[in-house]
């Protein structure tokens, strides 16, 4: 049996092969930047929230001087990407590029909207997203090449998050359609954010509380291991919508028969089935990784521990669990990233979370509303992955080979 491991971790490129792939990536980034600048629109202008929009190229989206400035910076980054190999320079260039386009796009609404018009919506268009993608690729690639340690990666994340928060709080983006959507539903945004986190983190906590002991039991009693893992595997293959459906029946019966359950807010539809479904999906990675983590503790280490007179309990807490911890943490990372994404689906059965905006937006064909739900979800998953990867590196620490 294999431990479940994340597939998103960046590949470690050997320095010998680096030169080739570096040029290739730099070339791709340069082409993306070129397409974004000269072929794709920078923003979309719509007379109101739901009508079809008209594309505006960079030169029509910003005051002339600013547009030229953005263009020169972007071309400069393309040049750096294609010709310079030093990761620090590439990182700085890409960061500068991101800062410039993020600030610039905030100025577009004021420029393209006729004065006094409050219905018109301006949102970033394909070209903007393409530039963001190109710069982000360059950032990610340089950070991988720099082989930053866990603390440096956490610091980089903190800096990026702080910069983004400052940008949002400064009001520089208030004219953008996305922020207008936010402004009209700020209260519900934060409520759904809390609900989203509650669903994702709460079910993770529950799965950890149940899954860790379950994994330890499977490790100690191989007989039941296969059975438990098979059941969890089957659950994992049930599509989320189907699982919600399956859970509705017992939960509504529970709610009807047990007044306490109803009083606690447990119903056939809403947050309860979503929470339970996320919990069930989370069990397999936690249990499987706990078992594999414990099983990969070298037999000689366990034998020596027994021979020195460590009791079962001491062995578990002083030797087996500490040595299994990095792999268990890998399971938790998978669950966290998976849950942050899956919690979106909870909105389908009235469970709340960022999915509420996504599905409302789809219903109203209001793409900005979809983004209001989708962007925070992606950002949360990304941050969770970076933070837990750093934690896993730290946990591996001294015993790494």
């Amino acid at each position, binding site marked *: 049996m294999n431990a479940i491991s994340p597939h998103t971790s960046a590949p470690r490129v050997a320095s010998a092969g680096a030169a080739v792939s570096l040029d290739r990536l730099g070339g791709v980034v340069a082409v993306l930047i070129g397409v974004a600048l000269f072929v794709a629109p920078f923003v979309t202008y719509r007379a109101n929230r739901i009508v079809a929009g008209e594309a505006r190229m960079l030169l029509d989206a910003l005051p002339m001087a600013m547009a030229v400035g953005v263009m020169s910076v972007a071309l400069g980054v393309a040049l750096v990407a294609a010709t310079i190999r030093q990761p620090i320079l590439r990182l700085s260039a890409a960061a500068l590029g991101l800062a410039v386009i993020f600030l610039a796009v905030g100025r577009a609404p004021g420029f393209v909207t006729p004065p006094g018009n409050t219905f018109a919506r301006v949102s970033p268009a394909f070209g903007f997203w393409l530039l963001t993608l190109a710069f982000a690729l360059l950032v990610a690639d340089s950070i991988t090449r720099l082989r930053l340690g866990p603390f440096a990666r956490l610091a980089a994340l903190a800096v990026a998050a702080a910069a983004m928060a400052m940008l949002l709080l400064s009001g520089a983006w208030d004219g953008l359609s996305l922020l207008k959507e936010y402004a009209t539903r700020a209260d519900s945004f934060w409520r759904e954010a809390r609900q989203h986190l509650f669903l994702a983190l709460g079910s993770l906590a529950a799965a950890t509380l149940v899954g860790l002991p379950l994994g330890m039991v499977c490790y100690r009693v191989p007989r039941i291991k296969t059975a438990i893992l098979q059941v969890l595997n089957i659950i994992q293959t049930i599509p989320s919508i189907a699982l919600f459906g399956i859970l509705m029946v017992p939960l509504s019966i529970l709610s009807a028969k047990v007044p306490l359950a109803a009083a606690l807010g447990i119903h056939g539809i809403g947050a309860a089935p979503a929470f339970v479904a996320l919990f069930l999906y989370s069990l397999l990675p936690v249990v499987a990784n706990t078992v594999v983590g414990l099983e990969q503790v*070298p037999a*000689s*280490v*366990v*034998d*020596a*521990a*027994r*021979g*020195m*007179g*460590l*009791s079962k309990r*001491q062995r578990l807490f002083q*030797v087996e669990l*500490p*040595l299994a911890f990095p792999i268990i943490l890998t399971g938790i990372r998978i669950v966290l990233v998976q849950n942050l994404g899956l919690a979106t689906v909870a909105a389908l059965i009235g469970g709340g979370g960022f999915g509420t905006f996504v599905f409302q937006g789809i219903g109203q064909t209001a793409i900005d509303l979809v983004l209001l739900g989708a962007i925070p979800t992606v950002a949360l998953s990304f941050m969770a992955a970076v933070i837990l990867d750093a934690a896993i590196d730290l946990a591996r620490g*001294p*015993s*790494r*080979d």
Partner: protein
Amino acid sequence: MIEIEHLTKRFGETIVVDDVSLTVDEGTIAVFVGTSGAGKSTLLRMINRLIEPSSGRVLIDGQDTMAIPEDDLRHRIGYVIQGYGLFPHRTVIENIATVPRLLGWDAKRIAARVEELLDLFQLDSAEFAAKYPHELSGGQQQRVGVARALAAKPALLLMDEPFGALDPVIRHKAQEDLLAIQRRLGTTIMLVTHDMDEAFHLGDRIAVMDQARLLQYATPAELLTRPAEEFVERLVGTAERPFRLLSLARVKDAIEPGPSQGEPLPVSATLREALSQLVWTGRESLPVTDASGAILGRISIDGILAHGRQPA
């Protein structure tokens, strides 16, 4: 003193250790040899009760091990295995301190003991104390493994192929170090090995096992001169017999009066070393000196060869 009485282990139908009885005297080394699967490890592991005997018993200084709680028993017996089983997430210091910590020694006493052991095993504490096992060479890991087993001053040390993973040079050094430390501390040792040279070098007594049975338990010289069964004779190696006998005897056992020429030999050298020197220098005899350099007599090829001969 360790007394093993009619110790037997069955796994289902198969008998893995069959009615083994033997005694290991205080402060001596008993070495266990035999083919793979003979039951050596099982026998060793029944002493600290990692494996529960099917029948028979083990007495340590007269006390039945069954009367001692399992973990207490193991705290009192050092245990070293092939691969050492060092804790990869703990430093050298923390590894060595394992049993003293379990026993609740105070921090000062533990620190002093660890320092003492690092010194004894020639591990520079400034350099090694904070290192993790994967940062050590095989020989260093081995020394930490033994130091850890000796940390709580056990009267008995069980070693299951402790030098199996070392290269010949390091292995020889490790054997010498173990002998020196054992003489100094007076620890009783039971050691399993596949290396007959090691067995003859270290063992005060050697136990030969085959197919779960103890065939012979005797001094190295007896094993050579009076093998109990053909299997023992074969295991000991017929071609090696005289040379092993010579390794067991010292120059003082074959010293003769009279003068001689050439580079003198120390009286403490083995006869094998003396013979080697005689062959190499092409002489019939060499003078023998004591530690102070005074001539005690001479040693001759004929005198040496008589010691390697089959007893009448």
